[in-house]
C-alpha cells in the first residue's frame, strides 16, 4: 500500500485549504499523492477544480457528515 502524507485541514476555512494544498503538491514528485482532510465544503470544490485545471489527479471521499478526504495526486507529465 502506498504511503501518503496527510494534510489535516479540519477547521480551516477558505482560502487556506487550497493555498496549503498547492504548497504541498509543489513538494511532491510526479505520481505522489497527498491526502487532505477538510470540513469546509467550498474547499472541496476549490481543490477539485484546481486539480482539474492543473491536470492533477483528485479523488473525493466523504468521511462523515460534513467531512471529506481529498486525495490529490501530482500529474506525471510536467
Amino acid at each position: 500500500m502506498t504511503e501518503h502524507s496527510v494534510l489535516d485541514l479540519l477547521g480551516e476555512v477558505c482560502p487556506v485549504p487550497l493555498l496549503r494544498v498547492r504548497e504541498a503538491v509543489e513538494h511532491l514528485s510526479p505520481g505522489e499523492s497527498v491526502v487532505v482532510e477538510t470540513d469546509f465544503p467550498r474547499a472541496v470544490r476549490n481543490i477539485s477544480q484546481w486539480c482539474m485545471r492543473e491536470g492533477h489527479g483528485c479523488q473525493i471521499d466523504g468521511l462523515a457528515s460534513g467531512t471529506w478526504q481529498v486525495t490529490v495526486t501530482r500529474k506525471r507529465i510536467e
Partner: protein
Amino acid sequence: MRPRVVLALVLPSAAAAVGWWLYQDRPATALLWGLGLLLGWALSRSRLCIVAAFRDSILFGDTGPAMAVLLALALSLPGFAFVQASIIGQGGPLPGSLSPVGPLTLVGAVLFGIGSVPAGGCAITTLVRIGEGHVRFLFTLVGLLAGALLGAYQYGWWVGLTGALDPVHLPGVLGWPGALVAEGLLLGLLGLLLRWWSRRGMER
C-alpha cells in the same frame, strides 16, 4: 438507527409541524416560514457566497461563485421592480433601503473584507455553517451581530463625519424600463468581464 437518519426524519417533520401550527392563525407567517426554509436549503446546496465571488475570482481564477451572484442579482431585478412599482403605484412608500454612498462605503467594505478572512465567508456562509452544525461559527455570528448593531447605532454620526452623496433610485431618474435595461446591461458587462478573467486564468 443512525443519528443522521433520525435527524433527517425528525427535523423536516418538526419544521412541517411548526408550519401547520402557524398556518392555523397566521397563514402569511406560515408562508414566510416555508419560504425561509426553502431559501436556507437553496443557500446550503448552492454554496452561494459573496466573499467567495470576489476571493475565488481574484485568488484562484474561479469565477463560478461570482457568476452565481451576478445571476442572482439579474433574477432579482424584475422581482424587485415589480414589488417596488406595485407599492409605489398604490401610493405607498418606496420599499427597500436606499443608503447614501461615500467614503463610509469604502471603509465598510474594507472592514467587511478583513472580517471575512477569519470568518471564511459572508453572512450567508456563517448562517449556513451554523445550520450544518458547526458550533464555532456561532462566534462569527456574535461578531457579525455586534458589528451590525454598532454600525446601525453609529451610522448617522459616521455619515455626518465623512459626508456622503444622496442616494439615487435609478427608476426615479431613468424610468422603470430605462433602469431595468441599464442595470441589465451593467450586469451583462460584468458577466463578460468575468468570462474574460476566467479565460485569462485558464491560459496562464
